[in-house]
């Protein structure tokens, strides 16, 4: 039930302990609407944030969030509990994002200016408010990053994102992309080379 959702003092939903998580999963499997609502409310922001950061734009975000949860609710029967629920949902996000990257017919600038306007810098990262020049610089840097990532093959792109931006280790990435750590390491090696080369090329192209 929603009343069981625990919130910490910052207003965010606190993490579930394993027993509560198992209980929530069991209730969801029993088609309990309140439990499904709770699962949705717990993870919706995490899912949207993951997809948004991986893809770099908010186009189709509603549809992708929906897809993730549909897969999650349908797949709960097969969830074995060998990872935390949040990790399992993250894995679904990664796969949905991978599918989206693969099916993109054309490749617009990965992050549009409208999106960048809303991607406000975390205040903790800057002691002083950004000046307009700094803001423009940051937006251009982000755009370059996503443009460079767009040059990579989808599998390489995901691995690079998870390692370089999310800071995950090889084992975690291997679980998320359903591969083994050795393959991930190889993929990451080439992905980094290609990405930073593309980034350098983007720098060369600057006025």
């Amino acid at each position: 039930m929603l009343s069981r959702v625990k919130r910490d003092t910052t207003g965010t939903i606190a993490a579930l302990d394993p027993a509560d998580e198992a209980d929530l999963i069991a209730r969801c499997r029993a088609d309990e609407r309140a439990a499904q609502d709770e699962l949705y409310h717990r993870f919706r922001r995490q899912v949207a944030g993951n997809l948004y950061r991986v893809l770099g734009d908010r186009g189709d975000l509603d549809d992708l969030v929906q897809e993730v949860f549909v897969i999650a609710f349908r797949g709960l029967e097969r969830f074995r509990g060998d990872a935390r629920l949040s990790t399992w949902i993250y894995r679904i996000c990664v796969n949905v994002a991978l599918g989206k990257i693969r099916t993109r017919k054309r490749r617009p600038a990965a992050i549009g200016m409208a999106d960048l306007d809303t991607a406000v810098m975390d205040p903790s990262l800057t002691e002083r408010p950004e000046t307009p020049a700094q803001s423009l610089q940051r937006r251009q840097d982000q755009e370059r990053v996503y443009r460079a990532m767009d040059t990579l093959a989808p599998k390489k792109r995901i691995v690079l994102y998870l390692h370089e931006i999310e800071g995950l280790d090889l084992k975690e990435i291997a679980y998320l992309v359903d591969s083994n750590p050795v393959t991930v390491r190889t993929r990451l090696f080439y992905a980094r080379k290609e990405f930073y080369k593309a980034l350098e090329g983007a720098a060369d192209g600057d006025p």
Partner: protein
Amino acid sequence: MGHVAPHKWADAWRGKLSESEVAAMDRHAETCARCAKARDRITRTSSVTFAAIKNAPVPEVSWDSVRAKVHWEVSSAKRSARQRAIRPTRAAWLGVAACAAAGIGLLVATGGTDVPAPPTPAQPAPLAHAEPVHAPAAPAPLAGMVSLVSGEVMIDGVRRTDLFDRALGTGTVIATADGRIDVQFGDHSAFALGPRSKLELRRFDATEVRLVVDGTIDVEVAPRAAGQRFLVEAGAQTIEVRGTQFRVVHDTNGTRVACRHGLVAVRDHAGEALVGAAKKVDVTSAVDATKVATLSDAELAQLAEATPVTTPLWIDDLAHRSSILELATSTHRDARVDGVEVGPAPLRVRVMPGRHTIETADASGRFHRAGWVDAQAAEPARLEVATPEPTAPASPTPSIAARKRELATGIAANRPKLGRCTRAAAKSGIEDLSVQIEISVDATGAVRFLNVDSDLTSVTQACIHDALAQIQFGPGPAATWHERIDL
């Protein structure tokens, strides 16, 4: 040393390289503008840009809409799966067909010339070539949440204590004794079931709402999307709407439909009558379009007062984000919550968290502040309203001439506002508009109370009250007086 591979700069920033290696790269960058630029760019990207991306705020998504679609898709898939499990498979049909054909063949082969003709054998065979039939997916169910209860109400024949926690759906039957129940089922969409009435939610989903009523129901419906139907069945009559506020009364005398705004269609076997804004139709035996009549001001005001209570927000976990406020009174008295009339107390009403001001009416119908209450999400709130001591009616005080002059000056200054309040009535051809006011001003010039009385609609009256309340009085003698104001 040749040019530095770009990813080496990222490695250097992450501390994966030895100090000597980094020093050699830096030395090269001092003489190579290209590598220096790459170093700066990649270092900034690794240190700032990646962090900015990682900490980017989560964009807002239409959370409720997404949730509804997820529920719809998941439940549809489960229903389809169940139906598939019940339906015989194609292979099974092929088996039946094959067995039937073999049986007939055997009969013919055994020379049974006098065997009667088999009754259309192997009918299932064509099914082997037919496209599988998929049942149309069921529309998403709606959930009605109770927003107000007063008096005795039964759900599915039981007096429930958890009325506000239940989501009402298809098949629910609501019955009232002397009470009233308001149920919200969307943004600005709600119905109020009046006393001694019974309502069945015969269909209650995204594509169709079909309510079967016996008694009085007041409905307010937000404009429906294409493909969405909203029907009220009252005896032999069906009332269909797109987006409107209306009342249906069905009893032994027939069916009466009154529409406050919007348009409703009243149909039965005899025909159809369109009832527009401020119109009504009485149906005794059969619908007659010529019987559509105009509502009087009093009837319109009555409809306005019967507007179902809704919460300002319609959210999917409303039950846990709102509070149930109980107004306890020893006698039946009209009550207002935050200035909105909610009907006669005692009652329980759904409110959003926060502070709420409660007013109750005295014997003469004038509202007085009864107190305030702080409501918290998912926790009930209660205000016990004490019975007021009978007070002597306020009598006009002497030395009010100065105050009356101030009022007259203020009214003159506020004429345009008052004109806006009475424009609708004036357009309807009502002339010689006036209101009776009772006002009390203290020595500092503060208005202690202001009551406006008239035959005008409550909306107009409230507008006039607001306009008069803006009049400023200076310090002077305290005064209380009655006055008629021509508008």
